[in-house]
């Protein structure tokens, strides 16, 4: 899937949506976010992309962080959605679904 040359541009535009969507289920720590996004090849990101995005979302007040004790080692910083983040996720999800359905419809009509 990632051999499609158009994927990188589209991927960047929806990374925020994917990250907010991940946090909607459960809070996660940074490396966990990187690892879970890496499970989707089209979204595969390095920590060098995820952490700056996390910083920006923190600054924008869409997510918040808390240090928590870890059973497996030193404390870890865990991220969760704020009320503003929940609202943003809802808006982005609606926009994404409209875009997806609209493009699918256009492609179907082209055949």
């Amino acid at each position, binding site marked *: 899937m990632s051999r499609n040359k158009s994927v990188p*541009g589209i991927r*960047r*535009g*929806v*990374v*925020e*949506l994917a990250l907010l969507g991940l946090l909607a289920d459960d809070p996660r720590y*940074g490396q966990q976010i990187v690892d879970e996004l890496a499970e989707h090849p089209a979204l595969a990101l*390095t*920590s*060098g*992309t995820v*952490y*700056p*995005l*996390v*910083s*920006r979302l*923190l*600054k924008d007040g869409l997510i918040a*962080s*808390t*240090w*928590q*004790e870890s059973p497996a080692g030193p*404390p870890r*910083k865990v991220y969760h959605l704020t009320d503003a983040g929940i609202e943003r996720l809802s*808006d*982005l999800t609606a*926009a*994404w679904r*409209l*875009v997806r359905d*609209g*493009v699918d*419809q*256009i492609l179907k*009509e082209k*055949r």
Partner: protein
Amino acid sequence: MNTHARHDSPASADLRAVAEDVDLLLELDARNHDDGRSPEPVRGTGTVLGMPYDLRRPTAERLKATWWDPASEKVLVPRAVGAGWAVNFGALAVKLGVIEPDAEDVPFAATPDAAFRAAAVGPAVLAAAVLAHYAVRGRSLPETLPNHWNLVGEVDGTVSRPVAAVIDIVTATTGAGLALCGGLSTSHGGRRAGLLASGTAAAAAAAMTTVGRVAAQGRAPWFGPSFLTGLGAAVGTSLLGLARAGRRAEQCRDLG
């Protein structure tokens, strides 16, 4: 396919709706550039033959952002002032495993005042050492001292002993002064860290140069790498200490 239906289909209205939603996602695209920089070139910056340059007046905040960005994977980044590259000590610290990329929500925002004041001690000690060196040994030093070394470590510029003393003492005390400003300032953490890092760099450079004027009077290929390593170690250690103090403060806040 029903061609008639295609002409009469609400595809135009659909496309407008899609375009509005694409705008939303494109806005995210523009904001999610990998390096967090604005897509528009900033006045006074650019590249020449692949080398980046920044001609803007340096600020403590920009120096801090260049030298400490653990969220980025890039160890070499464009310099905050001048041409060439600088070391992102934050990325280096992450690669060495001594700090996490997200150790602090905002670098140095939670770092306590005591940590900033403690970080100002190092440059003060270096400045005192430079002063003591010229006060105690000044008269026994040669009349001319090395002032510049070429790429292979040969001395290719000298100055008189008094001029060397003035250069080193002024540089060292200026560095200590900047660091003191950072230590005692009440402004936000990023600016304070920038002042401390700049002051540490100046004081360390003066101290290393003072050593070099005495120890590297002949051909000394070791001096250049030692100078850069010492400078980097001083600045990196100062910033790492501040960042770890900030992380500890956040952990105390959340874990009690």
